[in-house]
């Protein structure tokens, strides 16, 4: 089973990496493609047990699909938050408007990758930064003002949880 | 068929260094034989090159990657470089053979790395000597320097600090050299020495070329430890382990002097160096200062190895001063002294290694009674000392002869006086050592017992160093005599062709 | 358009002085790391812009990409110092 797992994770990473190679390379003659194959094989052999510990081919596809759905929303959120922080920073009475504080809460996401995605999303959204995250989902978040903090955990957590099927 | 010898001389050590580096992690026993074999091949190659050059009288050019001179990198083996190549490979080989046990004792689990660095250092020097490309020289200089830092750095307790200082100054020197190459490049657009030499006479009055000359020479002066910038040398050399010192001390400064000679003669022409610029007088005075300073500082040392390092500084003064006398005699002397001083210094540092092996100390006072307990070693040591002093028929005398003759011919009596002064100081230094080892009773440091008693060495048991150390050492000390006797041949057959015809 | 990009690049390089100011002056080391990080992101854009100015953007992307990736490693290494060690002032007291 272990060998099986390794094999499939090898194949998955190989395919993904080959895609990247093609994008990087932009050359499709035999020579470069074969070079790419070799390179991808080497890298996948090297990292297959690291990056994709338990491969589920269909799961990964679904995950990615969900993920791509999540991204536009995230970007929109980030943009909104950006304008908010921007207005904070550029406002003459900035010192009155900001109110940095740390808030702590526990996320219901259990998947490690999910937690990381969630934490990074929080950080990416201006106004909030994940200070610490434990393996059990305890987050401490530094927020620059009350408004930024208000949205947490909120919708973002829902969406991330949905990606990772929880 | 291409003559591949010039490439082999450096490639074989390089490949061997790689193998040794790997072998150090696989099977340590393989390191030493591989290195010795490679250096032997390199030595034989260098000797064959020398013979070829002397026989044909023509420089051998080797084109790397098959590209002709200004485009690619070429090696040019002429009389001068072939001679220096032989010296480098020989010194390196002999010292490696003799220090097998020392290496084993001092760097038990890093033997592979040490030998690899050792061979890389040699390869760097070989490349510096043979290359005909100004920039390639920089790269090889850095290889030699880096491996040199490492070799020195793992010595005695103060070695890291001293080496760090060496590293700083060495980097300044190398970077200045690189800057000089850049200035030449900006002025001419070329990096090949022969090509540069062809272009430069057309732009004698260019300030850029002048500055290139100044900055390159200042860089090299730092590297060769000329007087005001000598600070790094004593600490670094005296703190290094004996196997490393036996390699680095004889070669580094000499090869740097060689490069200076090469740059002044073959890159900037004789005409430019000696007639266009009036720096030679000034540099001779700097050399005089170096000699006097080195000699006086050597007098103040009680540590044997530290004394040697100051002597090296003084010897650098000999060579630089002799070269900048600007006449055939002086230059012959300087070039001959490159050879002789390398062998002499090697001999002295090998002796230091043996003393260290024997007494565990490099203090002057700990040489007590060694004449009695190790007569053969001391015989070789005396020969080396006499050679440094300049007593005939050891080789030191003959190079000094040329130098003094050159000094007289150039009317630089101060330089002559400095040389003689330094000879006398060396006599004092070495006879002080001889006296200590001759008159005072032997103390066995390893066993803590005083078995000399009464007359020094009268009852001492003969306890020579191991054969593997002693035989190369004696070989080198006999070479001092042989070189001395054949110095005439060296000068007439080799060095005279190395000096351009323009020099009187 | 290229002129526009040139001016944008100039503006960006002027903006770069501000994080640089933070990393030069910045009271704590963390401020400096942050400044460097900010310089890094601006540099990435700037590299691409230079590519446009040279008209050879395909050649500059690789640099920018490598830059983005390695900047991350440098920042990580620098902050890693604090993960393992205490702050400067405590070290001085010690």
């Amino acid at each position, binding site marked *: 089973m272990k060998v099986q797992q390794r094999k499939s994770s090898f194949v998955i990473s190989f395919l993904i990496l080959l895609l990247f190679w093609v994008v990087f390379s932009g050359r499709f003659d035999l020579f470069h493609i074969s070079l790419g194959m070799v390179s991808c094989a080497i890298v996948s052999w090297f990292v297959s047990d690291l990056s994709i510990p338990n491969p589920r081919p269909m799961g990964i596809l679904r995950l990615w699909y969900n993920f791509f759905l999540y991204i536009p929303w995230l970007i929109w959120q980030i943009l909104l938050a950006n304008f908010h922080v921007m207005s904070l920073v550029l406002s003459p009475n900035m010192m009155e408007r900001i109110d940095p504080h740390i808030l702590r809460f526990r996320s219901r996401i259990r998947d490690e990758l999910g937690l990381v995605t969630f934490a990074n999303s929080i950080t990416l959204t201006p106004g909030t930064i994940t200070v610490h995250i434990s393996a059990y989902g305890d987050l401490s978040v530094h927020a620059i003002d009350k408004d930024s903090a208000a949205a947490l955990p909120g919708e973002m957590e829902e969406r991330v949880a949905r990606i990772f099927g929880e | 068929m291409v003559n591949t010898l010039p490439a082999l001389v450096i490639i074989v050590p390089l490949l061997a260094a790689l193998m040794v580096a790997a072998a150090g992690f696989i099977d340590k026993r393989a390191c030493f034989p591989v290195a010795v074999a490679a250096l032997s091949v390199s030595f034989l190659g260098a000797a064959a090159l020398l013979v070829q050059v002397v026989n044909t009288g023509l420089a051998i050019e080797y084109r790397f990657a098959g590209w002709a001179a200004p485009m690619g990198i070429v090696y040019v083996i002429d009389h001068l470089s072939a001679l220096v190549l032989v010296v480098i490979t020989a010194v390196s080989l002999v010292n490696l053979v003799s220090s097998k046990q020392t290496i084993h004792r001092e760097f038990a689990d890093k033997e592979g790395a040490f030998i690899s660095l050792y061979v890389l250092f040699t390869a760097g020097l070989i490349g510096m000597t043979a290359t005909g490309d100004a920039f390639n020289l920089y790269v090889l200089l850095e290889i030699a320097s*880096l491996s040199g830092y490492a070799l020195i750095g793992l010595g005695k307790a*103060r070695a890291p600090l001293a080496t760090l200082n060496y590293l700083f100054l060495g980097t*300044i020197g190398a970077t200045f050299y690189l800057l000089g190459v850049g200035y030449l490049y900006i002025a001419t657009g070329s990096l090949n020495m022969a090509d540069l030499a062809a272009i430069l006479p057309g732009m004698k009055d260019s300030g850029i070329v002048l500055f290139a000359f100044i900055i390159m020479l200042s860089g090299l002066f730092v590297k060769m430890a000329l007087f005001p910038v000598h600070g790094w040398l004593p600490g670094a050399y005296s703190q290094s382990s004996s196997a490393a010192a036996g390699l680095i001390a004889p070669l580094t400064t000499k090869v740097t002097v060689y490069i200076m000679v090469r740059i002044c003669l073959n890159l900037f022409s004789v005409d430019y160096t000696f007639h266009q610029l009036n720096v030679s007088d000034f540099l001779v005075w700097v050399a005089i200062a170096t000699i006097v300073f080195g000699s006086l500082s050597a007098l103040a040392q009680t540590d044997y190895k530290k004394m040697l390092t100051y002597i090296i500084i003084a010897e650098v003064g000999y060579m630089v001063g002799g070269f900048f006398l600007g006449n055939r005699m002086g230059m012959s002397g300087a070039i001959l002294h490159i050879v002789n001083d390398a062998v002499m210094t090697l001999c002295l540092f090998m002796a230091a290694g043996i003393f260290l092996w024997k007494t565990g100390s490099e203090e002057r006072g700990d040489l007590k009674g060694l004449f009695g307990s190790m007569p053969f070693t001391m015989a070789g040591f005396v020969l080396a000392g006499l050679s440094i002093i300049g007593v005939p028929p050891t080789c030191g005398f003959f190079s000094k002869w040329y130098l003094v003759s050159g000094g007289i011919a150039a009317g630089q009596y101060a330089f002559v006086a400095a040389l003689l002064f330094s000879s006398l100081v060396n006599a004092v230094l070495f006879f002080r050592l001889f006296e200590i080892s001759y008159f005072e009773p032997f103390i066995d440091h390893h066993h803590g017992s005083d078995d000399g008693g009464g007359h020094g060495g009268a009852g001492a048991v003969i306890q020579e160093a191991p054969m593997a150390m002693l035989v190369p050492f004696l070989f080198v000390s006999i070479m001092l005599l042989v070189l001395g006797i054949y110095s005439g041949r060296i000068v007439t057959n080799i060095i005279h062709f190395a000096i351009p015809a323009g020099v009187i | 358009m290229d002129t526009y990009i040139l001016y944008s690049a100039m503006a960006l390089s002027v903006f770069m002085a501000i994080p640089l100011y933070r990393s030069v002056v910045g009271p704590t080391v963390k401020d400096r790391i942050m400044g460097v990080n900010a310089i890094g992101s601006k540099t990435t854009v700037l590299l691409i812009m230079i590519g446009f100015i040279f*008209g050879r953007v395909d050649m500059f992307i690789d640099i920018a990409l490598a830059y983005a990736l390695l900047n991350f490693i440098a920042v990580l290494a620098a902050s890693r110092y604090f993960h393992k060690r205490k702050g400067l002032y405590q070290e001085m007291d010690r």
Partner: protein
Amino acid sequence: MDFLTVLISRANYWAYIILMMVGLYAMIAKNNLVKKIVGMSIFQTAVILFYVSIGAKQGATIPILRHGPVPEGGGIAHAALRHGTDAVQAVNYINPLPHVLMLTAIVVGVATLGVALALAIKVYKEYGTLEENEINQRLRRG
């Protein structure tokens, strides 16, 4: 040529001199070994700046041959190229030689940096400090 023109038209050279002197100053006059190492790094990069400035060529593009035709309006840094032909002309490309040399110099720089830092660590292990004057004091005392 008035002062400002000289100042600007050779700005790279002035900058290299300043950087070089900054590095040299740190190497000579600073007391702390790591500071000296930092200075050394700066010193070396100054030379790189010098070389790269030698290689610079007005109106030329980067030293990688173009495959296709020149795009319209693409690139203002190499105006010459636009009225060039398809044939490779030296005047259209920046001199690659200094770049090659400087790759080597950078490599040498990082190698030296590594060795220097290793030595600094050893010095610290030996003396417990990186300040040269403190080390010297310690040496003098014992």
